[in-house]
């Protein structure tokens, strides 16, 4: 009886750790605490696009300060791997985007590549992406970051509504 119960709880815990997604408050708490401890323990300011820029400057050979953000980027896929390892497999699907690109691989690849250019160029121009501007910038009360976040959301809402209510 006791063992049965223990087994049940163990099963639930491993499901939640390695398969299931979490409610918004639990995941948000985790993301917030990661950013906060990064500031407290390491004195660093979270920013993912900066990592892309550092990796870029490594290749082109221009100067940059310490490359801690690149190592931060190295950790990201490991986290994604462990979070889904209970049902992990390689996949060519991409959720709702498959329907938008008629299931044709090269259209999907080009679509993602050109959206990627917009993301990279726009994030550098805006001075940060979702992590640097929307989380750290807004939490620091920066006017630029708050306005940038409003612009992110406005453009996202408009484009997504065009895609799924007009095009599809």
């Amino acid at each position, binding site marked *: 009886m006791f063992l049965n119960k223990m087994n049940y709880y163990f099963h639930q815990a491993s499901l939640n750790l390695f398969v299931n997604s979490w409610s*918004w408050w639990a995941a948000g708490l985790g993301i917030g605490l990661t950013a*906060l401890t990064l500031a407290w323990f390491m004195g660093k300011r979270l920013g993912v696009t900066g990592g892309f820029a550092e990796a870029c400057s490594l290749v082109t050979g221009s100067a940059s300060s310490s490359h801690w953000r690149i190592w931060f980027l190295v950790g990201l896929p490991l986290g994604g791997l462990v979070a889904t390892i209970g049902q992990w497999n390689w996949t060519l699907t991409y959720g709702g985007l498959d329907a938008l690109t008629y299931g044709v691989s090269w259209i999907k690849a080009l679509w993602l590549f050109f959206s990627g250019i917009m993301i990279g160029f726009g994030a550098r121009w805006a001075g940060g992406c979702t992590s640097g501007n929307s989380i750290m910038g807004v939490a620091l009360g920066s006017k630029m970051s708050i306005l940038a976040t409003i612009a992110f959301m*406005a453009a996202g809402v408009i484009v997504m509504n065009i895609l799924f209510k007009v095009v599809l």
Partner: protein
Amino acid sequence: MAIARKKSKTTRKSIEVVLVKKRKKISTALSLGSIVVFILFGFFFGYFLSKARATDYDAIRDMFLAKEFQLYGVIGMAILVVAAGLFLTHRFKKPTLSGKALDWETLKFEPNRLIGALLFGAGWALAGSCPGTVITQLGEGKIFAVFTILGIFTGVWAFQKWQPKDSNNSTC
């Protein structure tokens, strides 16, 4: 005489180059321990992004179509935690455990940056991912994330070519 002066100039230049290179080496050196710690921070960030479903195209779609509260809640909660934590650090003037004061400069307001922000928002909706989540997707086995990552590198590189002296290094 003129030749000699030229020579000395060039040697001085080469000495300066060597010095700059040496300085760079010192500043870029991270200890093995801190590298492991930064990878661990990345690990947890990616783990929670995945748990938040921020790496799921459909979750991003439903956020922008206002069908689902999930990701608005995640971003809001993260901002709240960071803001509260940083407020307490400043309020009680506690030094952080790294020994450094958290006196980051925030970005100066420039209307031009909003064009970039709109561009980013449109790309976010088109690809259904932002720079952090797309790398995490690689770990989840979503192979097509590679193309978005290549695009982001191209975009970042193009921006550096266009605005090499942009001063946003402090933020992101």
